[in-house]
C-alpha cells in the first residue's frame, strides 16, 4: 500500500506540458463543455462540468509551473491539492468521465479537455484514488493478462467452439502471417461469435492470420486507470509477441479503448514506433469491401441505427469505414442526429463499466437516457455498434429501461450475411 499524495503530485508534474498550460490559460469559464457532456446534460448537475473535473490538475500546474503561482505558494497564499480533495475528485475523474472526448470538440477556446483528464488520472492512480473496480481490473490484467481474469485456456475453449461452428481452423502462434488478431476479454466472454466471424471473413478474403497465446488481450486497464508504467507493461506483451512473430499488422478488435491503447498510446508508451502496422478490424473490412472481397449474400432488412464508439471514431479516427460497411449489409439504415464524431457516449467507457458501486451504476443508467432518446428518435429496434464494452453497457441499460432494442456487432453482422 504505497500510494501517496506525493507520488500523485509528482506524477502530475511529470505529465504537465505546453498544451496543458495553454489550455488552462485559455479557459474562460463559458461552461459550453458541460453542454457536450452527457453526465451533465442528463443530470443537470454542474459538478460534472468537464473543465471542473480538472481542478486539481489546474492548481498543480499553477503552483508548480507559473511564476505567480510559485510565488503564491511560497507566500502561503495558494490552496494546495490535498488527499481528501483527490478522493472527492475520484467520482468526477472516473465515474462520470468516460474519456469520450466530446467536450474537446466544443470548447470555443480549443481546450482538449479529455487530453488533460488522461493526464490527471496519472496522479489519481498513484495517489490511490482510482475506483476499486478499475483497480481490480488493472490488477487482473497485470497478474493474469486480462481485466476479467480470462486466461488462455478459456480462450482455447472459445477457439474450439468457433472452429466447430464455422468449420474453419483458427491459427495460433503462426509466424510471418499478415495479421495477428487481438481480442478483448469482453468478446471472449460475451460475444465469442466475433472470432468465428473473423475466421470466415479472412478465409473468404484469403488473408493469413494468427492469434498469439502470449498476447491475445487487446484492452489496457493501465490506460484506463491512468498508470502509464502499467499500461506500458500491458501493451509491451502485444508488441513483443507481434514483433517476435514478425507479423505485418496487428488487428485491433471491436473494443474502443483497446484501439486507443495499441494504435495511439502504444508507441508512445514504448517510446518508439512499432515494427508492425496497427489496423482496426473495421479498417481492414472496409479495405476488403473496397477491393470487392466482402460480398454479401443477403441483407439485414429491419431498420437499424448506428452507435459510433467514442474511442474508435471520435478519438481513434476511424471515421469513414463504419457507415459504408453497415450500408453494405442493411437495407434500412437510419442515422442518429448526432452521428460519427458527434455521437454520444454509451456511458461505460474509460473504465466506468468496471465500477460496480450502486451510485456509479445508477449514474450510468441515468445518462443512458440520451442513447434511449437517440434510439427512439431513429424509430428503430436494432442498434449496431462495434465495441464490445458499448454493447454490454447498452444491453444492461436497455434491460433496465425495459426497451425491446437489440444490439448487434457490426463484424458479426457482416459475417452472418457474408457470401459463402
Amino acid at each position, binding site marked *: 500500500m504505497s500510494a501517496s499524495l506525493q507520488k500523485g503530485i509528482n506524477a502530475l508534474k511529470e505529465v504537465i506540458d505546453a498544451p496543458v498550460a495553454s489550455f488552462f490559460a485559455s479557459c474562460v469559464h463559458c461552461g459550453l463543455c458541460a453542454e457536450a457532456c452527457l453526465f451533465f446534460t442528463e443530470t443537470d448537475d454542474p459538478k460534472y462540468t468537464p473543465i471542473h473535473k480538472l481542478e486539481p490538475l489546474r492548481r498543480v500546474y499553477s503552483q508548480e509551473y507559473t511564476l505567480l503561482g510559485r510565488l503564491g505558494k511560497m507566500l502561503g497564499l495558494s490552496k494546495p491539492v490535498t488527499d481528501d480533495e483527490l478522493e472527492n475528485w475520484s467520482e468526477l475523474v472516473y465515474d462520470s468521465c468516460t474519456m469520450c472526448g466530446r467536450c474537446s470538440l466544443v470548447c470555443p477556446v480549443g481546450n482538449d479537455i479529455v487530453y488533460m483528464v488522461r493526464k490527471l488520472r496519472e496522479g489519481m492512480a498513484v495517489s490511490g484514488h482510482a475506483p476499486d473496480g478499475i483497480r481490480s481490473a488493472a490488477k487482473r490484467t497485470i497478474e493474469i493478462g486480462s481485466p476479467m481474469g480470462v486466461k488462455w485456456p478459456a480462450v482455447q475453449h472459445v477457439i474450439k467452439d468457433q472452429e466447430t461452428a464455422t468449420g474453419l481452423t483458427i491459427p495460433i502462434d503462426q509466424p510471418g502471417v499478415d495479421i495477428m488478431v487481438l481480442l478483448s476479454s469482453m468478446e471472449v466472454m460475451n460475444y465469442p461469435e466475433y472470432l468465428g466471424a473473423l475466421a470466415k471473413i479472412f478465409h473468404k478474403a484469403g488473408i493469413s492470420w494468427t492469434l498469439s497465446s502470449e498476447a491475445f488481450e487487446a484492452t489496457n486497464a493501465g490506460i484506463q486507470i491512468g498508470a502509464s508504467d502499467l499500461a506500458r507493461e500491458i501493451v509491451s506483451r502485444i508488441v513483443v509477441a507481434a514483433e517476435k512473430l514478425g507479423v505485418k499488422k496487428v488487428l485491433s478488435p471491436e473494443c474502443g479503448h483497446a484501439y486507443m491503447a495499441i494504435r495511439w498510446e502504444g508507441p508512445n508508451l514504448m517510446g518508439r514506433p512499432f515494427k508492425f502496422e496497427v489496423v482496426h478490424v473495421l479498417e481492414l473490412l472496409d479495405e476488403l469491401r473496397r477491393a470487392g472481397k466482402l460480398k454479401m449474400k443477403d441483407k439485414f432488412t429491419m431498420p437499424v441505427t448506428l452507435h459510433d464508439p467514442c474511442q474508435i471514431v471520435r*478519438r481513434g479516427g476511424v471515421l469513414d469505414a463504419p457507415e459504408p460497411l453497415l450500408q453494405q449489409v442493411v437495407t434500412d439504415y437510419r442515422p442518429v*442526429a448526432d452521428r460519427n464524431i458527434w455521437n454520444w457516449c454509451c456511458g461505460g467507457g474509460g473504465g466506468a463499466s468496471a465500477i460496480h458501486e450502486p451510485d456509479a451504476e445508477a449514474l450510468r443508467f441515468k445518462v443512458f437516457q440520451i442513447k434511449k432518446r437517440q434510439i427512439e428518435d431513429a424509430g428503430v429496434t436494432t442498434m449496431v455498434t462495434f465495441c464490445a464494452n458499448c454493447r454490454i453497457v447498452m444491453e444492461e441499460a436497455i434491460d433496465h429501461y425495459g426497451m425491446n432494442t437489440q444490439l448487434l456487432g457490426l463484424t458479426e453482422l457482416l459475417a452472418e450475411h457474408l457470401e459463402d
Partner: protein
Amino acid sequence: MSEMIFLAWVRGMGLNIAIGIFLLGTIWRLIEIYTLGRKQDVAAPRHRSGASGWHTMFRRSLPIPGIMQRSPVSYIGGYIFHIGLAIVVFLFAPHIKLIQSLVGLSWPGLPSQLIDAATVVTLAAMLVMLFDRINKPVKRFLSTFEDYFTWALTFLPVLTGYMAVKHLALPYATMLAIHILSVELLLIVLPFSKLFHAITVFGSRWYNGDINGRRGVPV
C-alpha cells in the same frame, strides 16, 4: 490636478506604464506557457485533409449545432460581444490613429454613427452575458471573482468610451481620461488573467487540432 493634466497623464505616463506591463506580461506568459513543450508523438499519424492544427484554429470559431441550441446566450452573446468589441476597438478612427502611432499600421474606419450602434449592441450583449453567468447553474458554479472582475474591466472601457463621446455624466476631458485609464487597467490585468485567452486561444486551438488531426479526426 486639472482635467487636462489628468488627461495628459493617462495619455502619457499612464499609457507608457500600461503598455510596458502589457508587453512584459505577455512575453513572459507566452514563454512560460509554451516552453513547457510536449513529447513527440511517435505513433504513425493518419493523414486526413482538413484535420490539422491550423484548420481547428479557424474552424473552432464556427457554431456547433446542438451546443448552440443548448446555450444560445453563451454562443450568440459571445459572438456579438467579441465582434462588437472588435468593431469598436479597431474601426473607430481615434483608435486606429492610436494603433498607427504604436505599430505604424492603419486602415479606414467606420462612420462614428455605426460605431455608436456597435457600442450599444456590445454593451447590451455584455450585460446579457453577465446575467447569464449569474443565472445559469454551470456558469455560476464555475465563476470566481476573476470572472466578474475581468467582465467589469472589459465592460468599463466600452461604457466610458461611449459616455465620453456622448458627453454623459462627467465633463468630456475627464470622461475621456477615465476611459483611457480603464483601458490601461485592462491592459495591465490581461496577461495575468483569463483575458490572456485573447492570445492563447490560437495556441490552444492549434494543439487541439494537431493532437486530433494526427489521428485523422477533424475537430
